[in-house]
């Protein structure tokens, strides 16, 4: 007999107290309204546990009563993983688990609870003279637990890897309330299955991460940043390889941006000025870290070399931190500006780096055949082979009619991605948005293995029900 919403609230209140259970619909909206504005289901309640023990207590109760639990961090996910599917679930917000438990620059580790806002973790690292190189557009709101559960990437993957690469150990509460204490900081640990990597990227379907030990790194003394004009994507690829060969691991960002996206930002007043050297179909935002006492001028020398070889058209360098901030804003506002330009259809995909020019040219051609006048704004982490292959509606088109035609556009893009040996979700995850897609494209054996693991760890199906693998 499933619990009613009222019973759910009463019983949760008994576990963590009335101050930390939200049941009134109007107070739940900030937990339910997700950034894509696509998923509109309600929830039975929001629970805000204040300790790991309280998380355990909630899961023991939920497991016994068959209550679905949706773990939620900063509610910045783009595939609906952090909001309910049915409406009778409880959202478990990690917001109060916001302590940084330890930071050890000498050992290169930081242990943070899952509710720590990523930007706050950055500040804590900087105050200790180090960096936590997980940098995402949403870092002001995103929380560590969500970042790990979606194995987020961001703009620093090139030099430091994604969330999985930066996680040394996790602590997580299992479906039955038991605590998995895996907070170690061992570089080498060959003692059976890699449970950490099972939980990272599981989108809260196998356990709820309550804390993690993360890698921190010496603070680069400075960065050299440039915005480069590139004639086409083949040249962008060539320039990436050219720079990678010269700056190697110090090449910390290589992001491509189409002119159209900058024009949108300038039109919407999101940039105080054009951060580029002038009109060009494509730009690369490039950053090279300078380590303490390292020589400066690496990026400038490499860019001049590439210029004299005709690989790039023009470049400007950040001459101050405000220049650097503006260049990064131009990259990080790419997604946000689309919501100001009407409806948009988005894909977070990856392919082998060498296939990016083909992915984009074939993708644009296919989609323009479907919807004449559509505005393609592919951008992102070229250095990781990860493109946010987004499309804005034609100017003046009806947003609803445009979105109604999303399916063929998705199919066209995913067909090309799969043909090129790519992935249909590079860094945003599966959530509820891509469950059907995953079923269609994932290797059946891989899917069976995932289902077996899910059944073993969450036999009652209470953890983030319906996400990733479906019901």
């Amino acid at each position, binding site marked *: 007999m499933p619990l009613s919403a009222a019973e759910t609230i009463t019983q949760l209140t008994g576990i963590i107290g009335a101050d930390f259970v939200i049941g009134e619909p109007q107070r739940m909206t900030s937990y339910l309204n997700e950034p894509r504005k696509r998923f509109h289901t309600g929830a039975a309640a929001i629970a805000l546990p204040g300790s790991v023990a309280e998380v355990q207590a909630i899961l023991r109760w939920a497991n016994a009563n068959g209550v679905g639990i949706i773990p939620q961090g900063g509610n910045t996910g783009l595939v609906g993983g952090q909001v309910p599917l049915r409406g009778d679930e409880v959202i478990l917000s990690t917001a109060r688990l916001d302590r940084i438990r330890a930071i050890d620059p000498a050992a290169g580790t930081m242990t943070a609870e899952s509710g720590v*806002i990523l*930007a706050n973790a950055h500040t804590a690292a900087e105050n200790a003279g180090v960096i936590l190189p997980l940098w995402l557009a949403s870092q*002001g709101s995103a929380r560590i637990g969500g970042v790990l559960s979606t194995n987020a990437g961001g703009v620093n993957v090139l030099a430091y890897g994604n969330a999985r690469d930066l996680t040394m150990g996790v602590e997580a509460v299992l479906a039955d309330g038991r605590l998995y204490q895996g907070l170690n900081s061992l570089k080498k640990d060959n003692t059976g299955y890699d449970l950490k990597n099972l939980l990272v990227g599981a989108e809260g379907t196998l356990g709820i991460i309550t804390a993690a030990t993360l890698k921190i790194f010496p603070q680069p003394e400075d960065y050299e940043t440039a915005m480069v004009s590139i004639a086409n994507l083949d040249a962008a690829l060539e320039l990436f390889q050219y720079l990678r060969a010269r700056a190697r691991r110090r090449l910390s960002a290589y992001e491509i941006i189409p002119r159209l996206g900058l024009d949108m930002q300038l039109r919407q007043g999101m940039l*105080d000025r054009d951060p580029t050297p002038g009109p060009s179909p494509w730009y690369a935002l490039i950053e090279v870290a300078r380590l303490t006492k390292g020589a400066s001028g690496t990026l400038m020398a490499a860019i001049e070399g590439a210029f004299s070889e005709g690989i790039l058209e023009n470049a400007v360098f950040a001459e101050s931190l405000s220049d650097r901030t503006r260049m990064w804003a131009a990259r990080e506002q790419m997604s946000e500006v689309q919501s100001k330009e009407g409806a948009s259809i988005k894909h977070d995909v990856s392919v082998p780096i060498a296939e990016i020019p083909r992915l984009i040219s074939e993708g644009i051609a296919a989609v323009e055949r479907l919807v004449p006048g559509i505005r393609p704004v592919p951008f992102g982490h070229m250095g990781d082979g990860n493109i946010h292959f987004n499309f804005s509606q034609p100017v003046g088109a009806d947003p609803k009619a445009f979105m109604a035609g999303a399916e063929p556009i998705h199919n066209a893009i995913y067909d090309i991605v799969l043909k090129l040996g790519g992935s249909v979700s590079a860094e945003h995850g599966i959530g509820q948005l891509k469950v059907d897609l995953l079923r269609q494209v994932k290797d059946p054996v891989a899917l069976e293995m995932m289902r077996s693991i899910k059944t073993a760890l969450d036999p009652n199906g209470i953890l983030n029900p319906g996400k990733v693998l479906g019901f």
Partner: protein
Amino acid sequence: MSVLVLADHDLGTLSPATARVVNAVAQLGPVDVLVIGEGVDEVAKAAASLVGVAKVLISQSDAFASAPADSAVALLETLAVRYQFVATSAGSVGRDVIPRLAAKLDLMPITDVVKILGPNSFERPIYAGNAVQTVTSNQPRQLLTLRASAFRAAASGNAAPIEPVVATGITTTAKIIAAHRTESDTPDLATAQIVVGGGVSVGSAEGFKLIETLAKKLGAAVGATRAAVDAGYAPNDWQVGQTGKIIAPDLYIAIGISGALQHLAGIQGAKKIVAINTDAEAPLSKLADVLLVGDLFDVVPQLIAELDRLGVKS
């Protein structure tokens, strides 16, 4: 030890900044106030009423119209030798005049003083107020500009004598050909007791009318961030920050202001800060004594109504 204060005035009215400068420097010795300009008799009378003023010197000449720096400096050069201190507020006239006068007299001026530690020792902020410099000087005389907002005003009720100073042979090569004044009936920003400030998220010049309405309700001055001024929502003389006006009100109400370093530099002297912002993580939200998280267009009209209900009147 005697002090000469150059009075600030505009449109025939003594600036409230001068009363603060007079009060601040009275500890250094008897204070004479110099009023220069055209048609400034009323300004001189107002200066003579300030407690702590020994006498007022008035010098009238069309060369001083709005006090171009070179004519003011020419007069001050001859007067300064009689004083140990020459001081004025760190407003646009003081900033223009004092360094020029200092170089003429081969002196290092000490500007933007926020604390007088003794006759030779002063505190002044550097790095946009993120550090404070303590300097001492062994020069024969000190040329100072003071941040008026950092000091309390002298009381009035005095009747110091007013003496004319002849300004013959003072000429200027610079000529003022136009003045663009901001029409506003709100108090002087640099010395106001309450300031209501708006940021770029106010969104338009019309939006700033809402900020002004609240300011009027409280008898407050209106301030703006550099971004809001750059966007054309507010006039340039409302700008508060490292490059605009420095304020130190008893209460600063910051509306939709995230708190760029540049802006924070201008409000560090505020005794209490109230912030209204959608972003609880914004630098100014974290700095505020009281924060309300919310949309300014919802909150401000409600706040005005609520202040009405509580009977707050300017």
